[in-house]
């Protein structure tokens, strides 16, 4: 794990007066801890778009990536299932336009397919310190509230217990033609999130939603890190 690079990302955001990392920055921190995230690149100029799309490959998702805009879906600054260069360039121009002059770029990322959405996260509890969350993800996370926490650092057994404890734990099994989730990998991710909480005191909250199971492989599709 590369603490220094994670430290550097959070540090530079903080010294820039920000307490929220962009999705791209958040994923860089996660990557430093070996947590699988979408393959993606941040572009600022139209000329950068096609080389990136060629590298990652269609279908793609393009999103606004700006510290000033936390809720990209609500602003309509996200395009999914982009399949051609023309669509990609048009999406770039629309998203860039939506920035209305605010600082930021366009995040181009692989489109992860999978019907099972999980959530992972971290909150710093006043009494217990960094607590890792695991549960059922997607847009109804807060309605279903099928989540559990563990105080960091997590043992491997803690991570496996979390996967057993959610009511919907069955979705991690082989179900309806879908492969059983890679629980070892999920455990690595949960332990890694806890480790971020231990290592980086300035990280106050982490929100990874959704974490999509692409076949058996979990991938962080959207990420938000909030600093203290």
């Amino acid at each position, binding site marked *: 794990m590369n603490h220094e690079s994670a430290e550097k990302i959070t540090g530079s955001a903080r010294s820039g007066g920000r307490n*929220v990392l962009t999705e791209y920055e958040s994923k860089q921190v996660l990557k430093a801890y070996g947590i699988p995230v979408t393959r993606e690149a941040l572009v600022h100029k139209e000329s950068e778009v096609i080389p990136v799309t060629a590298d990652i490959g269609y279908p793609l998702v393009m999103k606004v990536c700006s510290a000033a805009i*936390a809720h990209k879906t609500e602003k309509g600054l996200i395009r999914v299932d982009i399949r051609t260069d023309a669509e990609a360039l048009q999406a770039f121009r629309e998203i860039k336009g939506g920035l209305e002059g605010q600082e930021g770029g366009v995040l181009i990322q692989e489109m992860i397919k999978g019907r099972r959405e999980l*959530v992972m*996260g*971290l*909150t710093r*509890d*006043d*009494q*217990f*310190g960094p*607590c890792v*969350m695991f*549960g059922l993800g997607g847009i109804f*996370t*807060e309605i279903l*509230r099928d*989540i*559990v*926490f*563990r*105080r960091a650092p997590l043992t491997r*057994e*803690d991570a496996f*217990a979390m996967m*057993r*404890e959610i009511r919907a*734990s069955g979705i991690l099994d082989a179900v309806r033609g879908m492969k059983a989730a890679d629980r070892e990998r999920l455990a690595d991710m949960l332990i890694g999130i806890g480790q971020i909480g231990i290592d980086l005191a300035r990280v*106050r*909250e*982490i*929100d990874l*939603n959704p974490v999509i199971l692409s076949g058996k492989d979990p991938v962080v599709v959207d990420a*938000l890190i*909030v600093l203290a």
Partner: protein
Amino acid sequence: MNQDQGDPSIVVTRASSTDFERIFHPKRVAIAGVSPGGGSGFGTLSFLSLQAMGFEGEIFPVNPKGGEITGLKIYRNMEDIPGRLDLVVVVVAAEDAAAILEAGRKKGAAGAIIITSGFSETGTPEGVAREEEIRRIAAEGIRVIGPNCFGIYCPRSGLTFIPNPDLTRESGPVAFLSQSGGMASDYTNMGMWMGLRFSKVVSFGNGVDLRESELLRYLGDDAETGVISMYVEGIRDGDEFLEALKFAAGKKPVVILKGGLSTAGSRAVVSHTASLGGSRTIWESILRQAGAVQVRDTQEMAQASLAFALLPGKVYRGLSVAGGGGALGIVACDAAEVHGLEVPPLQEAVSKKVASFLPRTGASAVNPIDVANPYTPPAVLENIFRASAQDSRIDLQILMLLPHHFKTFSGLERGWMTFPYEELADRLKTVAAETQKPIVLVMTNTKRGLPDLDVVEVHAKARQTFLKEGIPVFDEIGDALRAIANNNRYYGKGETA
């Protein structure tokens, strides 16, 4: 030297050097704040309660006015008491507490119980300052329980709470920790009739010195304690508490009632994770992580503690349920499923054997077993339970009794005392020991009104008799199943819920 909350090593060092034996089982106790004229002051009540309990050690009442109480000399000063003290009970005014504590420390006391209130709980600068002074003296070598507490109930030594001079001296495996003195007193009283017997009950009030984490570690190691129950509101240090809880729960069952589980505070949160991680959810997760069993109310806590105290420590999944009445059995099966328990149909050979002891009509020998008769003689019940225990899927057996039926018919011909609970207790105990499958009793009393106080009385006597034979008794089938499920939550750690 101040107690540094940030450095756990200090706590550990102090705990290891703390003479808990002299605190819980003192031989020489001073009580400061006893009135020479008797009366109903807390100091006097504290003294009288200790005497009423039959405390065998020496008691030294203290009051600057001197005099005597129940024939005992009241010492004007702590310094006048001859020899070394083990424990000081401080029931003087808040402003005088520090001086008594310091005097007790100089008399070699291992600990002090400060009953007096008027400290940090008042929120006043004077109160906070007084508590700081207590903390300072404690750090110099006397362990403090309190202030603003009810102290300790320890049946083996005879220590008790002020309002409870009538608690039993019979010890048992259940320990209880609580900030609240009222909760400690209520829980202990409730435990008395429910069948709990205690090793140590501590109400630590403001918890200036000894409190949840250190006491958990102590009880975790305490040979007298087999199950720890605990009421928690706030804790001093999350890390320390989690580690202490893990330690204690690693050694014996810990049952926790967490009070004050309101939703997340007013702190503004940005992420969904933080908004989902309210106090309730985090606490539930932390307690589970530590391996403790969380319960929702005092009844559930007492019932779980009873199961832990009386049932051999293992998972009980398959149950046989026997009683007089079909509907009762059906309801029991439904409730069992909710709690992750099974009521499997008995194997054919076993069922046949059971059927041979049942009436030919109206009964069922499948499981639930319907004995079709509320007056089934103990000898027959013994045969049935011996037979049903032969099924390998049965881990534990439940008997649902409705003793009030005996009254219904006593008015018609027989006497009320025909409910033969002594014989039944004896026979059930024999079967349980022989088959190595515990029997749990459910005695539901549907007659509890004024005209039926005789039924209530027989219930109480029967309950006491069964408990004496080590047979757990519950009022309702749901209570029994929930207690067994709580038992399984502890012993089945790591299994899928």
